[in-house]
């Protein structure tokens, strides 16, 4: 197992870690022509999206994705998936709860998004429209605990060709 690189969420002027994959339903809908590939064991989904909450809507505002073969991995952006929406895409396909961990690390788990941090902000989303949010305090970390989202190690796969 390897802990996974998180998505990013821009919300209320803050750049937050998002431990949730709101793009997955779109990718699995049957409408997606792209097949992302993992550039490393810490990014099995093959992309990192940056999301923003604007006017109570959830938007995908940028993307760094990886496509290609094992020999050559090419980096692509949001335009590869949504060429007509460079400013951001309304995520109407997503309903669920966004989880944004913050604060010092409480307990590290080298897999998925399973590590726990001092606080979790949960944001409800219904068909792309943002609803209630609430914060959960998970505990108090030790004084020397690392701050923020942490990945311990990963293995790179393939040669990444950057644009």
């Amino acid at each position: 197992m390897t802990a996974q690189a998180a998505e990013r969420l821009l919300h209320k002027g803050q750049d937050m870690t998002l431990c949730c994959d709101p793009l997955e339903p779109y990718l699995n809908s049957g409408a997606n022509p792209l097949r992302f590939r993992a550039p490393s064991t810490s990014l099995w989904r093959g992309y990192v999206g940056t999301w923003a909450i604007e006017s109570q809507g959830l938007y995908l505002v940028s993307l760094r994705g990886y496509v290609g073969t094992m020999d050559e991995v090419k980096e692509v952006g949001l335009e590869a998936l949504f060429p007509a929406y460079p400013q951001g895409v309304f995520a109407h396909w997503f309903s669920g709860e966004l989880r944004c961990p913050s604060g010092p690390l409480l307990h590290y788990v080298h897999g998925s998004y399973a590590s726990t941090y001092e606080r979790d902000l949960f944001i409800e989303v219904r068909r792309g429209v943002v609803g209630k949010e609430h914060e959960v305090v998970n505990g108090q970390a030790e004084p020397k605990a690392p701050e923020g989202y942490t990945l311990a190690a990963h293995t790179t796969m393939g040669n990444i060709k950057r644009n």
Partner: protein
Amino acid sequence: MHADAWWWLGGYLGLGTLVILLLRGVVSAYGMGWRHRPEPPRGPQTWRELQAHRQWVVFAFFVWWIWPLAVLILIQKIMWPSQLDQNDRCIAQAADPQYAFTYKRRTTCRKVSRAEALAMGQLEPDPLGRMPNVAFGHLNPAWEAMVGAMAPGDTLRYFTISPRRQRQDGPQWPHHRGALRGLAVLRKRLVQAELVFESDHGA
């Protein structure tokens, strides 16, 4: 008798025959038969006999226990099939093609008209107004492609799936699908295309 049952029974019988032939070959080739071994010096007659025939005792154990176990598994598979087995059987036998879906654990599946499907594609408006007001929003091109490829006689099916952790969950990251709602085009008994237009991870 069910085709699977014949396959299993034939397989086990065939394997059993192979094992017997293989063991007989090994015994013959290496002279491991009990006839070549000196009799143990002590012990009651029955124990000495048992030791002399120990290869056959072990073999008999496998014959007596493994084969009935295999038959029991076969009976269990026929009498109390798993959900996936039942689905496979439904696909093979049912006149209704709804069982041919990729997502076999659907909870709803019914025929819908194109107008009904379009009504399902009505979305919450984009708060910033960037997305055009079309059915299924950003999935509209896939919807158009799906219905555009429909031939006379094809039907549209609406399906829902309960939330669950899918079988293909990897150890690296959870692939939890929420409650899914989708549409599919069926031709005869085969799914031509599927479009999952809503995925509720909070369900």
